[in-house]
């Protein structure tokens, strides 16, 4: 393999790694959103608090995907 092929494979593998890293947060945010919707349907008067908690939880799950996004640039 010559040098340009190696660079290409490495840059492609970075994207694959980011894609793999986005799976977990995607599932996590999906579950959090499901819980928020169900809880709001059961108790609509708590909507404000539940949505805030959902945003916090989603932000924490999303942090992993964002770290992966940064790693594609700096590695």
């Amino acid at each position, binding site marked *: 393999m010559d040098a340009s092929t190696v660079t290409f494979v490495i840059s492609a593998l970075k994207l694959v790694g980011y894609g793999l890293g986005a799976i977990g947060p995607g599932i996590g945010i999906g579950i959090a959103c499901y819980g928020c919707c169900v809880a709001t349907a059961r108790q609509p008067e708590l909507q*404000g*608090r539940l949505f*805030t908690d959902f*945003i916090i939880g989603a*932000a924490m799950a999303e*942090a992993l995907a*964002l*770290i992966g*996004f*940064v790693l594609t640039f700096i590695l």
Partner: protein
Amino acid sequence: MNALETLAADVPNLKQSFDPTIVFGGLTQYTLWMIIIFAIVCIVVLTAARKVTLVPTSKFVNMVEYGYEFVRQDMGENAIGRGYEKHMSFLATLFFFILIANFIGLIPGCKTPTGSLSVTWALAAISFVYFNYYGIKTHGGWGYIKSIAPSGLPIALVPIIWFFEMLSLLLRVLTLAVRLYGNMFAGHMVLGIFALATSVFIGTAIQNMDLVVSLPSIGWFALLLCMYALETLFAFIQAYVFTILSAVYIGLASAEH
């Protein structure tokens, strides 16, 4: 030349148009737009503040007051809780700045400053310094360091939990910055690619005098409109998320146990 080949050849140009370029002096286009947005926010809020009355009569003042009410209710009362009043000026400034910065990028020809990593790093750093300052002010230096680990843990677990909490505290500045940047940059890139595809297919059709080639551009244009609607939503959501996370971090840092 094939339409798809032209599209592939034009994508690097599109990517290059996102790079910061010097407009005049030492200003890149992102810095220039940041200053313009700063001016817009100042003008809008100061004009509204000058005309403020007990019962708002003008539509303009009502609009700005609605925005402020929204920040106070959703971010102040819900996320910070008791003692939120003194943080309101910071949160409202942050929210209005990011909101207008995100929306201005949707106007063709304007550049969104939040689509550049330097601007979002600066915003995240301001927020990071702010909540740490209030944490130290509430608990004192050593008390704040201790309060990072939640109270009521078994003594053996405290160092481990403290380490992870500290890591997540330090990662907050990174996630705040990269979330805003990633959403704005990727959104505008997608809009750019769809717009490019629309024009390339029409251009190829005109060049080859073949009307059938231009048909996919109808689909691309429909997709572009859908993405525009989605980006309008995202411009608001990202401003909201950035501000509410800042509010939550302030609330966590300055909470009294």
